[in-house]
């Protein structure tokens, strides 16, 4: 079900497909290598340290810091009608990094490098098909979990 992840999906098949189900349930998941304990975000099935093939999803809190961002005016196929939109790269406090849209609790015009944010799991409510993503929100923002 990894095709659930992102507004447009080009990656239907992956060993970490469960990530999208967890995101729908309100949980942001990294991976922990069953053999050596290495934690990765984004999650990965194969450990770069010990080459182990077994992993377990591990929940992330999602607090982090903005590393950089941009406002995209010229968008690719599938994003027509949503421009301009702002995406930012965030260093997670628990390690690893993600790229996400700016959500409603942040003032896009005032977004700044170094700003603290909370990553919040989201469902595209307006779409018929299940589509999940996450947004960058003000610290302290809460959400429901399944």
């Amino acid at each position: 079900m990894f095709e659930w992840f992102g507004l447009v999906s080009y990656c239907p098949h992956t060993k970490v497909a469960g990530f999208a189900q967890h995101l729908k349930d309100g949980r942001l998941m990294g991976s922990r290598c069953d053999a050596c304990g290495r934690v990765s975000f984004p999650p990965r099935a194969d450990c770069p340290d010990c080459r182990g093939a077994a992993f377990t999803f591990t929940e992330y809190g999602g607090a982090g810091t903005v590393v950089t961002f941009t406002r995209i005016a010229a968008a690719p196929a599938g994003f027509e009608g949503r421009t301009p939109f702002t995406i930012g790269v965030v260093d997670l406090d628990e390690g690893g990094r993600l790229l996400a849209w700016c959500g409603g609790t942040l003032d896009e015009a005032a977004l700044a490098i170094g700003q603290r944010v909370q990553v919040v799991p989201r469902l595209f409510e307006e779409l018929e098909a299940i589509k999940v993503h996450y947004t960058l929100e003000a610290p302290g923002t809460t959400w429901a979990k399944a």
Partner: protein
Amino acid sequence: MARVGIIGCGQTAFGRRSDATVQELAFEAWRAALDDAGVEPDVVEATVVGSVPEYHKQRSLPGVIQEYLNLNPRPVWLTEAACASGSAALRTAWLEIAAGVHDVVAVIGCQKMTELETAEILALMGRVGDVQWESGFGTTFPGYYAMFARRHMHEFGTTSDQLAAVAVKNHHYGAANPKAMFRKEITVAKARASEEVSAPLSVYDCCANADGAACVILAGERAARALGKDRVVWLDGMGCASDSMSVLRRSDLTGLPSARAAAAQAYAMAGVTAKDIQVADVHDCFTIAEIMAYEDLGFCGRGEGGAFIDARGSYIGGAHPVNLDGGLKAKGHPIGATGVSMTCEIVSQLRGECGPRQVPGASIGLTHNVGGIGQYCFVNVLRRD
């Protein structure tokens, strides 16, 4: 390892070419390179084609190119390294000669980017990054470089005027290059007034898609001498490195670690340092990319790229003249052809053939060709004896 040099080079004009197939473009560059080298096709033992396949309706380009150039049954295959595909082809040809497998090899870089319809281009554009973790959010090629620019501005105080100054320089020199797509000077004010693409980058911070082909003919030292060639430009330093597809795995967002690694290899192999480079063609797919290149190549210190262009350090007369052919910005960027075209430009500079945009007496030059957002970087040092 035997020394390998370039005995001939040629390229088409870059721009919209709605009159020709990609193999017809390749033939134009091939003809020009043979004429330049003064050799007949029978001395060329193999070819390597650099191109990004997904822009062409014709699949497996080496097949149609080798046929149209009438070079069957000689070996050929395609190399792909995004916007550095042409340099991957050049490196492959260099390896074929350095290994002693062939004496003379032709490199063809080519791309038709204006064949696709707008919808097809927009679909491709949405898949330039890591499709698993990034494309689902609508990332674009300018978007990634915009995030580099934002971070560079944050850490070093680089300004939009400094980015625009790169575009102004490249249009200035591009105006003097008969092969360039855009041959008009621009001003900082005009560049700053252009439409936003991905903040803080606007239209004049971005290079343009183009059609075109370029060809260089390589020979081992003994073969070059046997052919009577006396104005060979030598590939004395060859560097190549990689970095993550995903921006999420980058250790640095203000430069390209792959460029620094490739430059270190090339300098060491050629026995030179950055200060020896008298002329360079660098990968200015976006203005910020050229600023980062100044720093990654050691033309200035980290974070000093903006000041370097302000001080005209990359103009003729500066410490390291850069992109005197107009760069990707004004010459155009037919992605597979770009690395080969850069090589053509530096060969011409080292031979002293560039007229109004010639660096007087240059004998050591450099090419810096980046794939994608630094997933690949090839840095080569070229020398005329």
